[in-house]
């Protein structure tokens, strides 16, 4: 059984492995023991803090496979993308250059450094053991965070953002970095990414060109990479778009990966989430039903699992004793449930059938 829960100190070795396995390597999840230790401490502080409005809290979750007894995935929410440092993105803008004298009107595209996304809550640092790819574990880990946010709205901004790793070529090179950042740093993409993990990304951003860049002056390959996700993240992006996120004008400053945004109230999981009292039934007695994410009502003891969305005629959610135990709920306690399937995603090529497969090998 798989469960999403807050990270604990014992997860450190698993985190290290997940950070090292992330494809591509994530700047916000550096495979660096000290940084990961800090991440765990910081997350505990966030869960324990009394929070009235979003600030510098980082909530880190892990996906635990109970059969293995270890964390096989991790994901983080930053309550504010740029709470202490600014969160830098490039914003795609269109300038109109028009001349009455010549009777011409030209649209010129630029990329301008922006701090606009700093205010949003950021879903980030997602890494899943490759053995669980293409299973419902992937969706659970990614979207359990939404179930958490739904319960503690005061801790997060109403605007959510998510940055996807940008396009890299077969050689692992970022055409965007090679045409832009490289001029200013003289280091290749992997180097700067590693450096950004150890330092902060905004620390590096401060040395990025401060004036807008004119797209016609970038190489065609770099232009083609703007707003394009890493091939391994296409499906994840599709899922979040189906969830209700929208592509934005913002892209990552290093690799030009897309930044998506959403008003949280517009997300499927928010709109369809509902509270239900729990009724415990033996697993074999549960009726067949579509899968749902089910989360308990506990801040520090947050748990989220995938279970059947089986409702009794009186609106109680029927859970197996194992699921109830994982969630730490007894008969009559309320849980938050939202359908795992997203409208419009099932038919998509490459999309996986949401189901009960939990990646057991």
């Amino acid at each position, binding site marked *: 059984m798989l469960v999403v829960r807050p990270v604990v100190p014992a997860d450190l070795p698993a985190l290290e492995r997940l950070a090292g396995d992330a494809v591509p390597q994530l700047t916000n999840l550096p495979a660096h023991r000290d940084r990961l230790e800090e991440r765990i401490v910081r997350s505990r502080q966030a869960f324990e803090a009394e929070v009235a409005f979003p600030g510098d809290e980082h909530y880190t979750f892990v996906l635990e496979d109970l059969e293995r007894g270890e964390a096989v995935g991790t994901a983080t929410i930053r309550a504010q993308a740029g709470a202490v440092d600014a969160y830098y993105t490039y914003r795609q803008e269109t*300038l109109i*250059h*028009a*001349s*009455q*004298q*010549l009777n*011409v009107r*030209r649209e*010129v595209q*630029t990329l301008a450094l922006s701090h606009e996304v700093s205010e949003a809550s950021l879903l980030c640092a997602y890494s899943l053991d490759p053995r669980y790819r293409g299973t419902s574990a992937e969706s659970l880990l990614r979207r359990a965070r939404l179930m958490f946010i739904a319960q503690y709205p005061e801790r997060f901004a109403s605007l959510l953002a998510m940055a996807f790793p940008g396009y890299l070529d077969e050689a692992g090179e970022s055409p965007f970095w090679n*045409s832009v950042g490289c*001029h*200013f*740093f*003289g280091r290749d993409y992997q180097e700067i990414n590693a*450096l950004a993990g150890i*330092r902060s990304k905004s*620390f*590096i951003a*401060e*040395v990025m*060109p401060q*004036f*807008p*860049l*004119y797209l*016609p*002056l*970038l190489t065609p390959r770099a232009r083609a990479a703007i707003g394009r996700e890493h091939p391994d993240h296409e499906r994840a992006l599709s899922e979040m778009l189906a969830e209700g996120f929208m592509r934005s004008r913002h892209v990552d400053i290093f690799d030009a990966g897309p930044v998506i945004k959403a008003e949280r109230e517009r997300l499927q999981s928010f709109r369809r989430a509902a509270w239900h009292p729990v009724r415990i039934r033996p697993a074999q007695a549960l009726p067949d039903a579509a899968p749902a994410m089910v989360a308990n009502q506990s801040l520090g003891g947050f748990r989220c699992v995938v279970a059947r969305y089986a409702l009794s005629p009186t609106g109680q959610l029927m859970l197996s004793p194992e699921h109830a135990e994982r969630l730490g709920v007894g008969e009559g306690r309320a849980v938050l449930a939202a359908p795992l399937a997203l409208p419009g995603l099932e038919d998509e090529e490459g999309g996986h059938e949401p189901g009960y497969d939990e990646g057991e090998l």
Partner: protein
Amino acid sequence: MRIRPIARGDLDELQALARETGVGFTSLPDNRDFLAAKIDSAIAAFEERQPANRRNYFFVLEEEASGRLAGCCAIEGEVGHEVPFYHYRVGTLAHSSAQLDLHRTIDTLFLCSDHTGDAEVASLFLRPEYRGGDRRQQRNGALLSMMRWLFMAEFRDRFPDKVLAEMRGVFNERGRSPFWDCLGANFFPMDFDEADRLTGLGQKSFIGELMPKYPIYTPFLSEAARACIGRVHEQTRPALAMLKQQGLRWEGYIDIFDGGPTVEAYIDDVRAVRRSRRCRIEVASGGDEAAERPRWLAATTRMANFRAAWVGRGPDEEGGIRLTPAEAACLEVATGDLLRVLDTEE
């Protein structure tokens, strides 16, 4: 050979000159109405009927015997008032961080109008048959270039503090500007010649409307385009050398179309302005003959009937200067008049 202000009767000859100048010579387009207006404006300037910001002193080099025009040159009193005067300023931005062990400087091009209000020496053109070969000894190019300093020295109060000269940039063997192809072509829906032609006609507003307003980081330009920054056209090197000799320097401003350098100086610091002297004329025949290679440049001191030419000898110890009757006739001066004289080999 002598210099005089342009006159109405010069229109046909001026247009013939304009046809010979070719690409990259923005200030002299082959456009009869434009040239006629330029002549009218110049005449008004010499007659002191123009406000400071519209004075365009346009001179021609005339072969007295035939009355043919061998070349021309001009001084703009103050640029940038009527129509904007744009440059790129080549700047440097440090991208540095001790913690990242990063120490880089990035060259940037900033669009600016820093030279608004400065004087400009411009439009120098000498017909091919009057330069090089047998004509080299006549120093016609030097006459055209340097007489302007005597004019400015003589009428110093008509000019501002600074003077500049825009030099033609690099074009490749196919006659294309690599700088334009990499930068301007992305922003202007026209080729270089057309952009250049409109600029020459003074229709510059499109530049402001279409040019990128933010600085350009030069690493985004092609290597060929970067190589054009501040570099002059092969044929412009002698002209640049002559200006540099007078103390004009490249301070990092370039043409926005071809990347050619703009050189500049404070007028009072220009060598010829500092060194030219006024002398009292004595016309007398006979005596020593003029040297083979002209050395002494002379200019008259009245604006309305301004003349400049090479003369055979310099001032004497009392500060007088002796002219032959032919030289006096050429300059249209008589004994007792004043002449501004420069030893160009000092």
